C-alpha cells in the first residue's frame, strides 16, 4: 500500500514538473522560487535538527564497546573497537562514517552446507549502502561544474576518474550506473525481504523513490534526451550568484530533475534522512570508553532521596549490635 502511494506521489510530482517545464509562468517557480526555498529549508532545517540534538545533553557515558578494554598493559587492547582516547574515537567514527563499520560487522563469510563459501544478504546491504552513499557524494561534487565558474580543477579530475571507462560520448560515468543499481537493490530488498518490508513505512519508500527519480531523470538527461548544458549552467549559476534566470530552451526534463532535488532538500530535515548529521552525535559511538578514567558530568544532575548509613544503623541498631558488628553510635 505505502509502496504504491509513495511511488504515485513521486510520479505525480515528476509529471507536474514536466508539464510545468513546458509552460511559461511555472518555470520561474520551479527554476527559482522552489530551489531557493529548498536550499533555505534544507540548511535551516538541518541546522535546527542538529542544534536541537545538541541542546539535549549527554547525561551519561554510554559507549557500546565492541572489543577488549584498555586495562592491564600486557593484555591486547582493541584500541579501535574500544577506544579510550579522542584519537581512537575519531578513527572509530571515521570508519563508521566512511566505511559503515557496524553494518559490515553484520556480514560474514561462512562455510555452510559444505565447502561453498556463502555470503549473507547482509553483505549486500553493506555493499549497496556504501555504494549508494559514495556515489551520491561523488555525483554531488561532480555537479559543482554547474554551480562554480570557472570549473575547479578537482571537479574535472573527479569526472575524468569517474568516466574512467571511456565508453561512448557522453562518457559513461561509473557512479551513474552504481547509484541506480544500489538504489534498485535497496528498493528490492525493502520489498522482498519480509522482515524489512514489515518494518518499512511510507516515508521509507518515499525517500527511495525520490532518490530514484532524481537519479533516473539525471541519467535520462545525460545519455538519452540531451539538454542544453550551457542553459542549465546559466540557471544553476544564476541561483548561486543571486541573479536568477530561467532562459528559454531548457528542456522540461531538467525541471523534473530540479524539482525532485528541491523536494528532496525540503523533505530532508523532516525525515529519517537527517541520519546524515545524527551519526556524528550518537553517544554509543562518539564517546571513548574512559568512564572509569575521567569523570563524566551530568548537567542536570539533581539530589535524590537516599537511605543513609545513619538511618540504616538506626533501623537495625539492635541487630547490628547482636551480630557483633561495629556501630557508629552505641
Amino acid at each position, binding site marked *: 500500500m505505502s509502496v504504491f502511494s509513495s511511488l504515485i506521489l513521486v510520479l505525480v510530482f515528476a509529471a507536474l514538473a514536466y508539464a510545468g517545464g513546458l509552460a511559461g509562468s511555472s518555470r520561474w517557480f520551479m527554476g527559482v522560487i522552489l530551489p531557493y526555498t529548498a536550499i533555505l529549508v534544507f*540548511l535551516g532545517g538541518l*541546522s535546527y535538527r*542538529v*542544534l536541537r*540534538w*545538541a541542546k539535549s*545533553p*549527554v547525561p551519561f557515558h554510554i559507549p557500546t564497546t565492541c572489543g577488549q578494554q584498555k586495562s592491564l598493559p600486557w593484555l591486547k587492547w582493541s584500541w579501535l573497537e574500544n577506544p579510550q582516547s579522542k584519537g581512537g574515537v575519531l578513527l572509530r567514527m571515521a570508519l563508521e562514517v566512511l566505511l559503515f563499520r557496524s553494518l559490515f560487522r553484520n556480514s560474514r563469510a561462512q562455510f555452510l552446507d559444505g565447502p561453498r563459501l556463502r555470503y549473507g544478504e547482509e553483505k549486500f546491504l553493506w555493499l549497496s549502502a556504501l555504494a549508494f552513499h559514495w556515489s551520491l557524494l561523488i555525483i554531488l561534487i561532480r555537479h*559543482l*561544474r*554547474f*554551480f*562554480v*565558474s*570557472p*570549473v575547479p580543477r578537482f*571537479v*574535472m579530475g573527479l*569526472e*575524468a576518474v569517474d*568516466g574512467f571507462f*571511456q565508453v561512448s*560520448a*557522453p*562518457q559513461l560515468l561509473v557512479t551513474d550506473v552504481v547509484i541506480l543499481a544500489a538504489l534498485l537493490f535497496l528498493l528490492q530488498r525493502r520489498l522482498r525481504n519480509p522482515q524489512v518490508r514489515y518494518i518499512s513505512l511510507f516515508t521509507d519508500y518515499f525517500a527511495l523513490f525520490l532518490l530514484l527519480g532524481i537519479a533516473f531523470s539525471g541519467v535520462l538527461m545525460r545519455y538519452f534526451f*540531451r*539538454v*542544453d*548544458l*550551457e*542553459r*542549465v*549552467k*546559466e*540557471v544553476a*549559476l*544564476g541561483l*548561486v*550568484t543571486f*541573479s*536568477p*534566470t530561467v532562459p528559454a*530552451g531548457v*528542456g522540461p526534463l531538467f525541471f523534473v530533475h530540479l524539482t525532485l532535488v528541491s523536494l528532496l532538500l525540503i523533505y530532508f530535515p523532516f525525515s529519517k534522512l537527517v541520519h546524515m*548529521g545524527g551519526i*556524528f*552525535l550518537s553517544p554509543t559511538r562518539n564517546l571513548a570508553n574512559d568512564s572509569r578514567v575521567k569523570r563524566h558530568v551530568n*548537567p542536570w544532575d539533581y539530589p535524590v532521596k537516599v537511605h543513609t548509613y545513619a538511618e540504616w544503623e538506626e533501623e537495625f541498631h539492635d541487630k547490628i549490635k547482636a551480630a557483633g558488628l561495629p556501630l557508629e553510635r552505641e
Partner: protein
Amino acid sequence: MRDRVWIVAGLLLFLAVITYPFWHGVEARATSQPPVLVLPAHEKECVAPISYMRTSHMKLLLDWRNSVVRNDQRKYVSYDGKVYDMSLTGTCMKCHEKKGFCDRCHEYAGVGTPYCWNCHVDPALAEVKRP
C-alpha cells in the same frame, strides 16, 4: 557541554562546505552570463537548427564519423536541403574555431575536452605551425 562547541563547529564547517558555490560565486564575482562566442562572419546557417546543435552537436559529429568511417558516405543533407561534406575540419571548423567557439562553452559548462582532438588537428594550430 563542551561537546556543543564541537557540534556547532562541525555544523558551521558543513554549512561552509555545502555553500561553497555561493561564496565562491561572490568571491569570484561570477555571473550567470554565458560565454560570448565568436560567430562565423560569412555564414548565417548551421547544418542543423541551433536548438538541436546546442544539445546534440556531439551526437551529430558521432553520426558523421560513423557514416564516413563505416559506410564511406560523406554527403550530409541538412534540414533545409543543403548538402554538406561530413568533415570536422573541412566543414565545422571552416566557420567555428576551436578556441573561440568550442572551448568556450566546453570550459564554461565543465564538459571535458572530447576525444576529437586525439585524431584531428585544430586547423588554426596547424597554420601556425606550417611556416
